[in-house]
């Protein structure tokens, strides 16, 4: 179990540690949301600029339906899975750092 004396005593050093964890996590969140905006959020704009894409079909199914109604969900799950792994890794690194500082 890591302890966190520096953080608890609200020292400058403790503030720096928490500040860097917070920035790391925020940066990770921003990256994930940017990918979401680029991959999913850009669809309306693309179709607005290139309306012919909507006529494309795979067999009897319109491509727009397959992409938005089907492919989006695995992409969302993948993004979430990647985020959870990296967020937990950031936290593990922080816990390890606290452990070393207190020893």
């Amino acid at each position: 179990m890591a302890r966190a004396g520096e953080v608890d005593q609200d020292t400058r050093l403790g503030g720096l540690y928490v500040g860097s964890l917070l920035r790391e996590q925020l940066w990770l969140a921003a990256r994930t949301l940017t990918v979401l905006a680029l991959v999913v959020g850009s669809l309306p704009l693309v179709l607005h600029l290139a309306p012919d894409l909507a006529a494309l079909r795979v067999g009897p199914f319109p491509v727009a339906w397959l992409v938005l109604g089907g492919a989006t969900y695995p992409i969302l799950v993948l993004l979430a899975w990647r985020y959870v792994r990296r967020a937990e890794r950031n936290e593990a690194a922080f816990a390890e750092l606290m452990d070393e500082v207190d020893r």
Partner: protein
Amino acid sequence: MISDLPGLPGTGAAPGIVAIVLVTVATLALGTYGLRLSRTTSDFMVASRAVGPRMNAAAVSGEYLSAASFLGAAGLLLAFGAEMLWYPVGWTAGYLVLLVLVAAPLRRSGAYTLPDFAEARLGSRAVRRTCALLVVAIGWLYLLPQFQGAGITLASAVGGPGWLGPVVVAVVVLVNVTAGGMRSITLVQAFQYWLKLTALLVPAAVLLVVWWGDGRPGDPASTAATTAWSVPLADGGAQGLYLTYSLIAATFLGTMGLPHVVVRFYTNPDGRAARRTTLLVLVLLGVFYLLPPVYAGLARVYAPGLADSGSDGLVLELPGLVVPGLGGDVLTGMVVGGAFAAFLSTSSGLAIAVAGVLSQDVFTRPFRGTRLSGVAGFRAGAVVAVVVPAGVALTGSGAGVATTVGLAFAVAASTFCPLLVLGIWWRGLTPAGAIAGLLAGGVGSSAAALVTLYTPASDGWSDVLLRQPAAWSAPLALLVMVGVSLATRRTVPAHTNRLMVRLHTPEAVVLDRG
């Protein structure tokens, strides 16, 4: 067969009645079982925070998949085409936004409800009261269409009078919530996710087999009409683009601000479990939302007329139209039961969230020297939380189901979303800034919706901006919050640093979390 309704050719009310009775009995039985486990106030409100990610994810999904998801999505897809795919996509993507921005810190804040979070973060009774008011407002806005939908479903599926649906749902929800609180509801919600998935998946699979056996017939409409139907973008050029993006903003950002969603995160044992729960929720919702487009597509082939005659009944009517005889009756019973489960689970979750806030901020405060105990206060809160919107639904007023749900999302995106995001990630937020932002976003988005509901529609930009306010009202709330906070910089609460540490430090690090 009791009667042959015009809406259900070839089937009667019997399968629907059987299904509704079965779902109600199962719900009450599970709720009673939970009652034996619920003893303390903490049990009632957050299931003593001992719910694992798998159970909690099924419960979150079961609670979240309302009538709008079970019936509304397929109906909207049939009537308006692919632009409506943004509803299910947005309802799912909202959880990704929630995951990366608020899930773990929100759990670590250690608060029971949204007003608890606001007070802990900002140390202000005024912010707390503003949030309590908003939770009740959004909760009632979201409960009203559930009761209305129940009335429509019961009337169309079993031919009962219009008041029957709201009354049955209200009574079952009240019995469950007042008897067992969150512990029993968690079990009921998790069960109802799997019930709803099965009730939609099995008929869809049978219908697909029938469609395959019929030689995979295509869309009978003209190619041009089919192309227009398959564009996931609202009509009207730039206005359509705005409407689509505003819908995306409301659903992506509004999910984290729905009171019945947020209250579920406090039942996780820690921040890590809160994240894993959210990841599993994305999987469960993704699987479920593959199904509404199947119903819409098959209805396009087999029952194109349904698009004109109130498409909310599509999911209920399609199985009976495609599969004749007993098989059709069984499938119809399944979808009716699933729809009823959708009303029950979403209204139970909302009732818990609203009752939690009412009991903390109204009923357990001292009044003339007496005060209610925690559990009694929660029960009193639950009665008020359910009776008020059920009463409004009985008067028959209110806008359409989809409109009211959309409004709830827009208000949540314009109020609690900026409050949570800034509260968790920005040390500079002040009580004055929070209140100003909540008021700007809340008043802006709800005023826009009221104007839309009570004035005739037009084609101008003003009408478009008011119809889907989230794209401007959410940024407005954020800017006001930041601006006023910067202007009142000296009133940043003294404990801010300490609290930020608690929100972001993993549980593996031992902290003085006092």
